[in-house]
């Protein structure tokens, strides 16, 4: 295996649970490089939700919480606030983050707490067999939208930004180089970082929504649908149908980070 895997992966837990060609594996791959490049292994505190993406942090040898469905973010808040020096990274899926986890997501963004939330978006509830998600495209056929999805999907980056996130970016599992740069920048950003990774899901979304389980074809679809910020500015709404914007979408510096605010608020003298 790759030397970085040899260095950081829990051998006992191999082989990786991901389906062949799954975008989750690429995100794990890129994350290991980010950890190595930043040299932050001993400060890492990882939290995984429930779903395929939630397994990702359990493969690292760092301290990891594998928690309840939708609740990775509040668990992560507890870890961060007990020691703000920790580099707390949350791995969550679209259903975990903005389905059941939606409330925690918007409040953590509102607080601007220094977490890095990496949401791997495959547009479906994959682990449970391919049910419709808050990010499934309209008309998408899934196990619980057999006649086509009638619900418009979230633009989760937009949700994050309007809730108060101070670093928001979107890439895909077909953009590992850009994703690596973004993950590193996001971890270093002292505030709520939200990184959405559009990812191929050969087994569920691939088969049911896209009509193919070929990982390479799905990767090409991701690349085709990804539009850079510059191009998106010139494009008409019609040209953006079925596409999404990639890049660093929002980056605000200078806003007070929440754990800093808490620790700054302690009275100078202990009393009582």
């Amino acid at each position: 295996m790759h030397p970085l895997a040899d260095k950081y992966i829990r051998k006992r837990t191999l082989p990786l649970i991901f389906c062949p060609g799954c975008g989750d594996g690429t995100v794990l791959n890129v994350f290991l490089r980010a950890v190595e490049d930043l040299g932050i292994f001993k400060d890492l505190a990882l939290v995984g939700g429930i779903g395929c993406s939630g397994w990702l942090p359990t493969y690292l040898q760092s301290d990891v919480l594998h928690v309840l469905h939708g609740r990775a973010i509040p668990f992560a808040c507890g870890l961060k606030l007990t020691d703000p020096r920790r580099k707390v990274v949350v791995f969550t899926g679209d259903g975990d983050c903005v389905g059941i986890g939606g409330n925690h997501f918007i409040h953590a963004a509102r607080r601007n707490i220094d977490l890095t939330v990496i949401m791997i978006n495959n547009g479906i509830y994959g682990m449970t067999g391919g049910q419709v998600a808050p990010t499934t495209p309209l008309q998408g056929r899934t196990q619980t939208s057999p006649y086509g999805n009638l619900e418009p999907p979230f633009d989760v980056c937009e949700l994050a930004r309007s809730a108060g996130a101070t670093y928001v970016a979107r890439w895909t599992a077909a953009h590992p180089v850009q994703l690596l740069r973004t993950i590193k920048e996001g971890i270093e950003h002292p505030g709520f970082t939200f990184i959405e990774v559009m990812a191929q899901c050969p087994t569920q979304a691939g088969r049911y929504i896209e009509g193919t389980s070929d990982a390479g074809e799905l990767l090409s679809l991701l690349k085709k649908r990804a539009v850079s910020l510059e191009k998106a500015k010139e494009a008409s709404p019609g040209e953006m149908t079925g596409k999404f914007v990639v890049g660093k979408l929002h980056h605000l510096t200078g806003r007070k980070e929440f754990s800093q605010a808490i620790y700054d608020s302690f009275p100078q003298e202990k009393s009582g």
Partner: protein
Amino acid sequence: MTASPRKKAVKEIIIDEQFCKGCNLCLVVCPRKVFSGSNKRSRAGYSMPQTTDAGKCSFCLLCEMICPDLAITVIEENP
């Protein structure tokens, strides 16, 4: 281990048969067409890719980075 712009020579490209799941993403992303299919099976029974033209490798490391199973290592000649 990010890609460097300086010119390198590749010694070999290892695909770990313990972990390869035959997804062929390496084949798809390689800009130099270094990989092709093969009849070789990985440990779990997946059809593995092979490197047919390692000399053409430009060290972009896209194959290394994209591999969902961390199975690919690009080894540099005289690093």
